[in-house]
């Protein structure tokens, strides 16, 4: 059974990682699960370690998802 794709927020700067979008420019394809990202991965914007991200159940603001794709 497929678990719903989730969103995570960096507690160092607020950068978000959306499993459905991935981060293609950082080598993470759309659909990459948080659990499948290496433990030594850090926030691409501020260097905060992966374990200081928080899973969030939060929607996008209007047009936010388009901005998330290019963030």
């Amino acid at each position, binding site marked *: 059974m497929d678990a719903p794709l989730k969103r995570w927020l960096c507690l160092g*700067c*607020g950068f978000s990682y959306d499993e459905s979008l991935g981060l293609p420019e950082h080598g993470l394809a759309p659909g990459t699960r948080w659990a499948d990202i290496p433990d030594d991965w850090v926030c691409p914007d501020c260097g905060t370690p992966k374990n200081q991200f928080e899973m*969030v159940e939060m929607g996008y603001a209007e047009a*936010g998802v388009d901005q*998330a794709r290019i963030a």
Partner: protein
Amino acid sequence: MPKSFVLRAGERGHDVIYSDGSASSYVAGHPGSHITRESSFNFHQYQGGRPGFGTVRVFGDEVFSGAGCGYNMHPHHNFIICAFVLEGELTHINTAGQGMVDQLRQGDYYVFSAGSGGKHCELSISPENMNAIYLWLMPGQLFLPPSYHRAHFDIRTRRNRIAQLVGDADGALPVSQDLRVSRLVTDRAGGFTYTPRTPEHGVYVFVAEGSATVNEVALGRRDSLGISGVETLAIEAADSSDIFFVETAMLDDARIRAWEKAHGADLLD
């Protein structure tokens, strides 16, 4: 059912970050300048305490010491960052909207919603120390348009009552979150009542100066109390006190819940 915790001043996370050495790209200032950061909740290096309270992830009591001390330009997204200047002068440069260079002094405060992205830089450019309270809030939605608002809390004309600084009251700075920040400055001892929007809302009470008894819990300078599940808070404030009230929706957050379970402090159960 009421749930609460008390955090004494000395129990907070304590970090000193110098402007030279390994943190020099992060912290600005002449050599020997340093930021002293007392964190009520886990933040950066400090990960030994409570992960947060409701929508609040950071409650920092910071002092910038030395000319030019502060944080160099750094990115933000999504978080809503508030600063309340207690003493000294904070020069705040941010890129929200058209961008702005702002200078905040005692009583001034800002609400910076980083939303879809922005950068900011915070400096104390004079040799005088700058002390501010920093609050980081989870936003209501991701990728909101960045915004910056600032205002002044006049300590002389707003004494001896609980005044709302951030939230939905007349004159308060708006925030895209179920949250209110209020402040009580006294020049005589007195009794006050704080009524949250609902008993399900939590209130984090921080005594910046002076002392107070809140629902029979005695709090000294820089002590704090987090409480939820109550209709009202009864405050007996001493003369010359300065008290912040951060009222927030209590999110059912897995990290906070896990921490509370592990520490026998089931604030949300």
